[in-house]
């Protein structure tokens, strides 16, 4: 099956800093989503982005499907950005595979 690798596994930022999270996948995918899991465990949809670039406020994402990676950019980070960021892909068998996540802590 498809392998999904996220990096870095852990990230500590000072409030106001920018960051880039990466998701690599081992095979072609039909779709890709980025989620933020907040401290209460709720998975919040950030982007549905099988290809191309999208922006939503301080967040943006780019997926280069031909090179099998996606990037999530967080600018001017805030303490409320803390949590775990997951990349999830769906391959040819329609099975959803999550990466292990990037754990982000933003210090005030």
């Amino acid at each position, binding site marked *: 099956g498809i392998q999904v690798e996220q990096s870095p596994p852990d990230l500590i930022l000072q409030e106001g800093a920018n960051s880039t999270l990466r998701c690599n996948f081992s095979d072609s995918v039909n779709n890709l989503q980025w989620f933020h899991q907040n401290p209460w465990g709720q998975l919040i949809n950030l982007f*549905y982005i099988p290809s191309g670039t999208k922006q939503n406020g301080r967040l943006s994402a780019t997926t280069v499907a031909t090179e099998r990676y996606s990037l999530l950019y967080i600018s001017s980070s805030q303490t409320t950005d803390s949590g775990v960021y997951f990349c999830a892909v769906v391959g040819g068998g329609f099975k959803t595979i999550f990466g292990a996540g990037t754990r982000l802590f933003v210090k005030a």
Partner: protein
Amino acid sequence: EAGVAQSPRYKIIEKRQSVAFWCNPISGHATLYWYQQILGQGPKLLIQFQNNGVVDDSQLPKDRFSAERLKGVDSTLKIQPAKLEDSAVYLCASRLTRGPNSYNEQFFGPGTRLTVL
């Protein structure tokens, strides 16, 4: 628009007992998923329904786990008997449709946190 609903939110049981979780997807969503998320890991897909039919249950431990989606709406996931390693958060998600050209998102419920003692 109401989101994915799950209940209960928390459950504590002893090993070898049985437990059931309930999920109500977003109205009109044909595809429903159950995931298991062990602490510190990403969610792992257990079973996927399209309407009331199972399309993937390859990672469901069928000797103890079962799931159904009668009438293609609500779904229940059952564990019988539970083991210590079943302690996890069980997440339900739904999606409008399943096909490869259906570029739409999965939406998740709040999850049920299960502790097996």
